[in-house]
């Protein structure tokens, strides 16, 4: 990205006030049905339509894709404006965006590697949630070992013919397009070669989708079978054989190790202050949980870590304070925030004492059993997008310089 123009503090403050006002006036009231914890668990049409309408509203108001070039549907403004919108959405815990695979992962790689034609074709409908995106990286036999993908795409005239199975495809059921990693040259030397990155249509007669149910009872991802699915060669992003490099770039956006996402939230924001509130309300072994010294100590531990994560996000943008390991904070972000969310939600449940056993739908459940579901869904972030163990490998090898295992 080119250097960004200076924006005056007054302009930013005015903008922030405008955003706050807009969010106050336009955020829809909570629906009668339950919303999911994130875009990953969208399980019903009503959830889907509610979130799609919200994304559209935000985009039409000019608060999404603000830093993307205006010729492709973006706002053409400095990143700082989108950051302010994101901040305010997080602070008020406004609903998250629906089309996250597009906004945060596919969009930035299309901007980075796509032709102008592709950018024009895909980005604006992505921002408006007119076209939904999904990601076809994982396969039943190849998860962490992503480079080993076996789905094939074989050139046939002006088309490619795709065969194979992708799995854990979030939003796959509703998606129009998939960022797909497939093998175009099965005879290439190493597993990293011969891979190509496609912007593949999956609203397609030869693409079959089978929903998978999650541990929470929700849906949201599926198997995606390609049965001789023919797609035009114009769907290739970058060059044939460049798939691995583009897949790695995608993961950098997905893990927020690199900036340039369209913006908005991707999940319900959870904060330690909510746990403090809950500890005040809940009784643990007959007493207010907040009076228990062990509870207080753990709340403090979590508060310190939450603050450290916030401060990392600020320090990350000050190169002079990150000289020795410039990539560390960016690359560790996914590991740190997902593991934090898992520990925090687990502790939240423990504050409820015996009521911790109750689940969504039981009238006696604390906060309708939301924390029980938050805890289970926390694994979606410690596993999805590359597991915590894989993140530790990456950090150990790339940032600390230790040998590969």
């Amino acid at each position, binding site marked *: 990205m080119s250097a960004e123009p200076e924006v005056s503090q007054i302009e930013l403050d005015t903008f922030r006030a405008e955003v706050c006002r807009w969010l106050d006036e336009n955020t829809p009231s909570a629906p009668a049905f339950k919303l999911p914890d994130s875009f990953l668990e969208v399980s019903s049409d009503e959830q889907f339509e509610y979130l799609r309408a919200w994304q559209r509203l935000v985009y039409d108001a000019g608060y999404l894709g603000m830093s993307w070039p205006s010729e492709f549907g973006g706002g053409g403004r400095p990143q700082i404006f989108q950051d302010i919108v994101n901040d305010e959405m997080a602070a008020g815990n406004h609903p998250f965006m629906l089309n996250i695979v597009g906004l945060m992962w596919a969009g930035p790689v299309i901007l980075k590697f796509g032709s102008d034609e592709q950018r024009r074709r895909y980005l604006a409908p992505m921002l408006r949630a007119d076209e939904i995106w999904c990601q076809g990286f994982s396969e039943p036999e190849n998860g962490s070992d992503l480079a080993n993908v076996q789905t094939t795409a074989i050139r046939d005239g002006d088309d490619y013919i795709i065969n194979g199975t992708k799995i854990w495809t979030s939003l796959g059921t509703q998606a129009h397009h998939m960022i797909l990693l497939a093998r175009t040259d099965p005879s290439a030397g190493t597993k990293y070669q011969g891979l190509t990155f496609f912007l593949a249509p999956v609203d397609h007669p030869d693409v079959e989708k089978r929903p998978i149910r999650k541990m929470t009872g929700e849906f949201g991802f599926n198997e995606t079978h390609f049965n001789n699915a023919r797609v035009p060669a114009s769907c290739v992003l970058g060059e044939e054989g460049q798939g691995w490099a583009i897949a790695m770039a995608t993961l950098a956006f997905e893990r927020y190790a690199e900036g340039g996402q369209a913006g908005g939230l991707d999940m319900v924001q959870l904060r330690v202050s909510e746990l403090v509130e809950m500890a005040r309300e809940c009784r643990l072994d007959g007493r207010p949980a907040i009076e228990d010294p062990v509870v207080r100590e753990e709340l*403090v531990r979590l508060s310190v870590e939450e603050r450290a994560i916030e*401060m990392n996000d600020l*320090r990350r943008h000050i190169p*002079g*304070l990150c000289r020795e*390991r410039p990539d560390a*904070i960016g690359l560790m972000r996914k590991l740190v925030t997902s593991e934090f969310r898992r520990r925090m939600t687990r502790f939240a449940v423990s504050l409820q004492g015996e009521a911790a056993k109750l689940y969504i739908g039981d009238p006696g459940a604390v906060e309708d059993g939301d924390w029980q579901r938050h805890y289970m869904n926390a694994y979606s972030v410690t596993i999805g997008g590359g597991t915590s163990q894989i993140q530790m490998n990456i950090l150990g*090898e790339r940032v600390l310089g*230790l040998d590969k*295992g």
Partner: protein
Amino acid sequence: MAEAISFGEEQELIASSALDFMRSRCSFEAVREWMETEAGYDRALWREIAELGWLGISLPEEYGGSGLGATEQISVVEAMGRQVFGSPFLANTLAAELLYLAGNDEQKQHWLPQLISGTRVGSVALGESSGAWDFGDFTARAELDGSQIRLTGEKCFVLDGGNADLLLVACSLGGKPVVVIVERSQVPDTALRVERLVDETRRSARIRLDGVSVPKESLLTGADASGALRRLQLKGALLVSAEMAGAAQGVLDLTLEYLKTRVQFGKKIGSYQALKHPMVWIMVGVEHSRSLLYRATTLWDAGGGSEELENAVRMSKVQSGDACTHAVDRAIQFHGAFGFTWDCHAQLFFRRAQWAEYTFGDAAHHRRHLSELLFKDDAPLSVSSS
């Protein structure tokens, strides 16, 4: 709103030159040599440090200081922590700051230039045998007797007590905390006992005050002593936190080096996930420590005396303490039997961490305070009712 984390060119310049200086002049070998001496530090090097302006880095230029902030100050301390550097730096810095906070003009003009130029070494006598980290309720006493102040009681854990020419003694006078300047020559040799510390690069002493008598002009009268002591206590926690953040980084580097050279089962041991993954969490601990440290110094320099500052300093000490004590613990294990030897530098860091964790409050102490700050209106379960 204050900037969340401030950054300036000066700070980066100081940080990188401090690190260069520490690495070239304070090798682990040199640290081990100084460790064997009585004073524990090298006087020629001390003079150099004074010339670099580090002894008065955050004090005003009118006293010979550099007029910079806590942000620049901790950059130096972090670098010292990385090399397990000892010396009376902490003692002298805190003495100068206490004088600056609580001394009257005459006291400041007389003493500060001497401490900042390194011609005299100062220290603060805060702790007592109770081990309380919240200073204020002192059993050491001062009594006015004509033109003299007579002292009684005992001070413990006095940083570089045996090296100091000048001691700022915290005690109570008529039930209120005060600070009295005591020169080393006013304390009989038999009243000072050098303490034996886990960290052999450090020095401290226990001082019996009974029979010590100083002119009444030795009382610091520039400001309310209890406020100054509270502030000093926070500054102490902040500096030790910086030291621990630096030490955690230093021991991370040391251990990584070993993991990249030692071979077992035909592979570098760093390739094993049982070692690699914990190293990643140590790095995360260091990154968290630095972010919270710079947040705290930013607030310090913004001039806050607020609860927000107290909160930030305590969080910083908790985080650096946890990160550093964990890093040194794993460092010993990951070096195998070599890590258990005297010759392995891991022990220097290990012992430093033990010292620093219990200086100006351990992590549990600061977490207790944080819980009071965070849950102000919620009564904790009292021990007796449980």
